[in-house]
C-alpha cells in the first residue's frame, strides 16, 4: 500500500510543521522548563528534577492533586452512567412527550456560560445548606460533563443500524438482552471516550469548581491558579508536566484498549 500514499510536498510539510508547532510548542517549552534548575522561570539554569522533588514534598499541592483526581474519576463515572442512559433514552426510546424539551435541557450546559452554571449551583447548595467540598464539586462536575457524554454516545447510537437490535430480537433476545448483547458492545468505545472526555473536563475546570468548592478542598487547577497569582513558581511547570503525562498515558491506554477489544471481539462475546 505504501506506493499509494501521497508524498508530502514541501508546502504540506511546512504547514504541518507550523500547525504542530502552534499547538505543541508552548507545551514543549513548559515541559523543558519544568526540568529547569533555576528559581527564575524564564532563565535556564541547567537540568534538574528539583521542582518535581519540591512538588512531592508540597503537602497542600499533593492534596489538591488527589482531590482533583478523585473528583474527576467519580464525576466522570457518574456522568458516563447518567449520560449513557440519557443517550439511550433519546436515541432509542419511544417518542415520549416533551422529548425535544428534554434533549434541549440536556444540552444546555454545552452552551451555558460556566460562570452562570457555577453561580446557580452555588445558590442551590447554599439553599440546601449543603456543606461545600468534595461532593458538591463532584455533583457540579457531573452535571457539567454529562451532556458531553450524551453527545458522544448518542451520535454513536444513531449511527448504529437499528436493524441490528431487531435482528437480535428476531433471534430470541428480549429488548433488554438485545441491548446488552448487541448494542452495548458496539457503543463501548463511545462510552470510554465519553468517560475520558468527562475526566479531562473535570480535571481542568476552574470556574465551576471555584464556585462550588469549600474551604480546605481546593482542586489542583484552583490551587495552581492561586499560586500563579502570587508569581509563577517553576514547581507549577513540574505539576503541569505530570498532568500532561497522565493525560497522555490515559489516551494511549484507552486507544490500546479499544484496539484490543475490537481485535478479540470474538472471545469477548458473551455466551
Amino acid at each position, binding site marked *: 500500500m505504501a506506493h499509494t500514499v501521497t508524498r508530502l510536498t514541501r508546502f504540506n510539510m511546512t504547514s504541518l510543521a507550523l500547525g504542530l508547532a502552534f499547538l505543541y510548542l508552548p507545551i514543549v517549552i513548559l515541559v523543558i522548563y519544568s526540568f529547569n534548575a533555576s528559581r527564575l522561570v524564564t532563565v535556564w539554569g541547567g537540568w534538574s528534577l528539583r521542582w518535581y522533588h519540591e512538588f512531592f514534598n508540597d503537602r497542600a499541592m499533593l492534596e489538591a492533586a488527589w482531590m482533583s483526581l478523585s473528583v474527576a474519576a467519580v464525576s466522570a463515572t457518574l456522568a458516563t452512567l447518567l449520560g449513557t442512559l440519557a443517550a439511550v433514552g433519546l436515541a432509542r426510546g419511544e417518542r415520549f412527550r416533551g422529548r425535544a424539551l428534554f434533549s434541549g435541557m440536556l444540552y444546555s450546559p454545552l452552551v451555558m456560560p460556566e460562570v452562570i452554571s457555577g453561580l446557580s449551583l452555588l445558590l442551590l447548595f447554599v439553599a440546601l445548606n449543603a456543606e461545600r467540598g468534595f461532593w458538591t464539586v463532584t455533583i457540579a462536575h457531573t452535571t457539567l460533563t454529562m451532556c458531553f457524554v450524551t453527545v458522544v454516545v448518542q451520535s454513536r447510537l444513531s449511527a448504529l443500524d437499528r*436493524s441490528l437490535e431487531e435482528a437480535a430480537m*428476531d433471534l430470541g433476545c428480549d429488548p433488554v438482552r438485545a441491548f446488552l448483547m448487541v448494542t452495548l458492545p458496539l457503543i463501548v468505545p463511545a462510552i470510554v471516550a465519553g468517560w475520558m472526555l468527562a475526566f479531562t473536563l473535570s480535571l481542568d475546570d476552574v470556574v465551576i469548581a471555584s464556585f462550588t468548592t469549600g474551604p480546605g478542598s481546593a482542586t489542583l487547577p484552583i490551587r495552581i491558579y492561586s499560586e500563579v497569582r502570587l508569581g509563577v513558581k517553576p514547581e507549577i511547570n513540574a505539576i503541569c508536566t505530570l498532568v500532561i503525562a497522565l493525560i497522555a498515558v490515559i489516551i494511549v491506554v484507552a486507544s490500546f484498549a479499544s484496539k484490543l477489544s475490537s481485535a478479540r471481539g470474538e472471545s*469477548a462475546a458473551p455466551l
Partner: protein
Amino acid sequence: MPLLRIEGVAKSFGNFRAVDKLSLDIRAGEFFALLGPSGCGKTTLLRMLAGFETPDEGRILLGGSDIAQVLPHERPVNMMFQNYALFPHLSVRDNIAFGLKRAGMARKDIATRVAEMVALVKLEGLEKRKPDQLSGGQRQRVALARSLARRPQVLLLDEPLAALDKKLRESTQGELMELQRRLGMTFIIVTHDQEEAMTMAGRIGVMDAGRLVQVATPRNLYEAPASRWIAEFVGDINLFNGQVTARDRGRLTVSTTEAGTLAVSELWPPVTKEAVSVAIRPEKVKLSRRAPASDAGASQPINRLEGVVIDVNYLGGITSYRVKLETGAVVRSSMANTARLDVDAYLAGQRVVAWFTADDCLVLEQ
C-alpha cells in the same frame, strides 16, 4: 388450514395507511413473493409477520394460533434483513450461533448445527472471520445461515438480494430456490424486482397502496393480470383504449382510436364495461415486411398494424423495436435474436407490419 393466515390486517402510521385490511393465506412449504412499488406496504406487512410492528386490526394466524401481539423473540419466525444486520463484533460462527444460544441449545448441538449451516451456505473456512472481512456475497450467506439456523416455521426475506450485483444475484436466486426446496421451509420474500419474484416464487402477491391487488402464479400474473395497473406494473405492455363494438362467442371486436379495430379473445371473467383497454405484451407483437397470410388458414383472427420503425434497441438476447403507426401511436415489439447473423434485421425508417393474434391480446377494463 394454511400454515400462515393473514386476516384483515391493517396498520397505519399517523394518517398514512400502510397496510389496508389485507388478507392472505400462505401454505406450508411455499415460496411466496410480495411484490410492489416502494411504499406499497409490503415491508410493513413483512415486519408485522416478524413482530417488529403490531397490526392495528386483524389477526395473523400461524399454525392456527394468533401471533399478531406476540413479541419478535417469541415467534417461530425468522427474518433475513435487507442490509443483513450482521453483528459486527461477532465472528461468522458466533453470528450463526447467536439465535441457537438464545434458544438454550446444548453447546455440542450448537457446534453441530453451526457446522451444518456453514456447509449449507458454503462458507467453510470463514467461520472465524468478522463480517467486515467478508465480501457482499459472503455476508449475504452468513445472514441467510443465521436466519435459517433456528429452523423457523417461516423465513421472511426482506429484499435479500438487493445489495448484490446482477451476476451474483442470479446465481443466488437459484441457490435460494434450491435451498428452499431441500429444506421444505416456507419462504416469504419481499421484493420490488419483478424478475426476481417471477424467478423464485411459486406464487406472487402484488401489493399497491396497502392492498393485495392480485395473488397468482408468475405465469398468470404476466399473462392474465387482473387490472390495467398490474399489467403495466409487471413487465412491458402496449395498451390501446377503445370501445367494445361486437361480441361473438368469446371474441370481441374493439374499436380503438390509436390502432383501429382489433379482434380480441375474451378472458374469464368477461369484461362488463364497454370502455376497455386492449393490452399486448411486446414479445407477442411480431414484425414482418409484408402482411402475413390471410386469416383463412389461421385458426384465429390476426390484427395487423402498419407503421414505420422509429427505434431499434439491440439488447443481446432480444432486440426491441418501436413502431410508429399512422395514427401516431407507438407499438413496442421485441423479438428474440435466434440467429447470430441476422441479415433480415429491421432498420429505423423501414415500413413494417406489426401483427398479433386475437389470443395474444388481453382485454382489461379501463
